[in-house]
């Protein structure tokens, strides 16, 4: 080919022994060229080159890892055309963007994975914290041989009451307590499901033989508690101090 040296791509003219007959300037500029065409091919691409770049395959396109001056290994798309025992070879770099996009996808995946994991950890931490808060929202405090008090704190939600229930039942089991003062002074809202849970809790306590004394009930709880009261016929006292006075004093 005339003036192959000015081609804007790496070009080689080779013979069947892979000797280089001529090449473009681009080829010289880009590749580390030793003895023959195979010298610029990575060891682990040699077999592939030998079985794909040969006169019996007139036209072929193959990816090979080539040694450039800048990098020891770069994936190249190599096109060959054989004519009259001479192979005309053009090399162009396999689309670089693809590698970049793949790399970016990789990073995103890694990030997502980390985020997933971090979120999971945080969720677990949070659940543990909530569980702890719930447990502390209804402690059983013994006041006397036969009297204990359970001050409720915060909003009475079903999960919280479930946790509190476990604590209370564990405490009452095997105890000498006859009266359990349940104090509502620090209670915020009581949800409908909360009431149901309370009902359950009080039922169980009474089954175990303890009397329940409700105290510190605020006007906004009164309606809900009144229904309960009817059901359970629990004793009711206005304030905690009065309850303590009455049952201990």
């Amino acid at each position, binding site marked *: 080919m005339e003036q192959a040296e000015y081609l804007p791509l790496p070009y080689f003219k080779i013979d069947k022994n892979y000797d280089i007959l001529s090449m473009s300037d681009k080829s010289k500029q880009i590749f580390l060229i030793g003895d023959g065409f195979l010298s610029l091919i990575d*060891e*682990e691409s040699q*077999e*592939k080159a030998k079985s*794909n770049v040969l006169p019996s395959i007139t036209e072929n396109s*193959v*990816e090979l890892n080539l040694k450039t001056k800048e990098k*020891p*290994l770069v*994936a190249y798309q190599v096109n060959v055309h054989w004519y009259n025992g001479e192979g005309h070879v053009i090399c162009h770099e*396999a*689309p670089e963007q*693809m*590698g970049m996009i*793949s*790399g970016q*996808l*990789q990073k995103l*995946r*890694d990030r997502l*994975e980390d985020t*997933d*994991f971090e979120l*999971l*950890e945080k969720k677990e931490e949070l659940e543990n914290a909530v569980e702890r808060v719930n447990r502390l929202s209804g402690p059983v405090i013994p006041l006397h041989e036969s009297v204990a008090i359970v001050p409720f704190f915060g909003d009475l939600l079903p999960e919280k009451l479930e946790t509190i229930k476990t604590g209370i039942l564990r405490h009452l089991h095997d105890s000498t307590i006859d009266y359990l003062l349940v104090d509502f002074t620090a209670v915020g809202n009581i949800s409908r499901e909360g009431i149901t849970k309370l009902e359950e809790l009080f039922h169980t306590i009474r089954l175990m033989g303890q009397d329940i004394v409700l105290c510190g009930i605020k006007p906004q709880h009164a309606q809900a508690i009144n229904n309960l009261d009817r059901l359970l016929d629990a004793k009711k006292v206005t304030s905690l101090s009065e309850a303590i006075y009455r049952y201990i004093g």
Partner: protein
Amino acid sequence: MAVMTAKWKVFADMLLNGDEQAAYQLVEEADSDSLTIYVEIMTKAMQYIGELWQKNRITVADEHLATSVCDFVLSQYSFPFKRRNTFSKGKIMFLCLEEEQHMLGSKMAAALCSEKGWKTRLLGANLPLEYALQQAAEWEPDVIGLSAALSYRLPLLQGYIDSLENLAFRPQVIVGGRIAGNYNVYKYGSEETAIFDSLHALDQWLDRSRGEVEIDGAS
């Protein structure tokens, strides 16, 4: 009787088709332990994909797709093991040498360690030595695993091993990846360096190094 196609081959086809759901299902239903899944299914499938490239049947683009799908399946499969390290056997950190993008293998090694109760950090592909040193100094792992697939990364290995082994807290450096299976890596390490040509070798070493044989999950 119908001839069964090897699982890794079926898996490889799924990877090349970008079918991550089928691929994940295959792994889930494989009824094998993790080591077998990593080595006999995933690694073999990826190596087969390398052979297909050698035979000019697929392109690097296909390799990219297959890698992404395999990586996805691996992430999903190994995710539950990540949380099992509260009572840990020790700290282990994995990284690929600078310019090394082949990270699937070290990810499998890391997943195996998590499952076996090690606190594990996977720093991933292409980690320049200075970052590796920095991370190591901050976290002080008992073991540092280096991974490389590209042959021309071999000479770099010596510097990594040397610097890491000489950190004040004296971590154990271990080396794996394609180069450890195919090349003589010993001459780049010290007497302390441990070199593993397969995940099985790592698995046994992990058991021995902590006097542990009975571990739930992986075996």
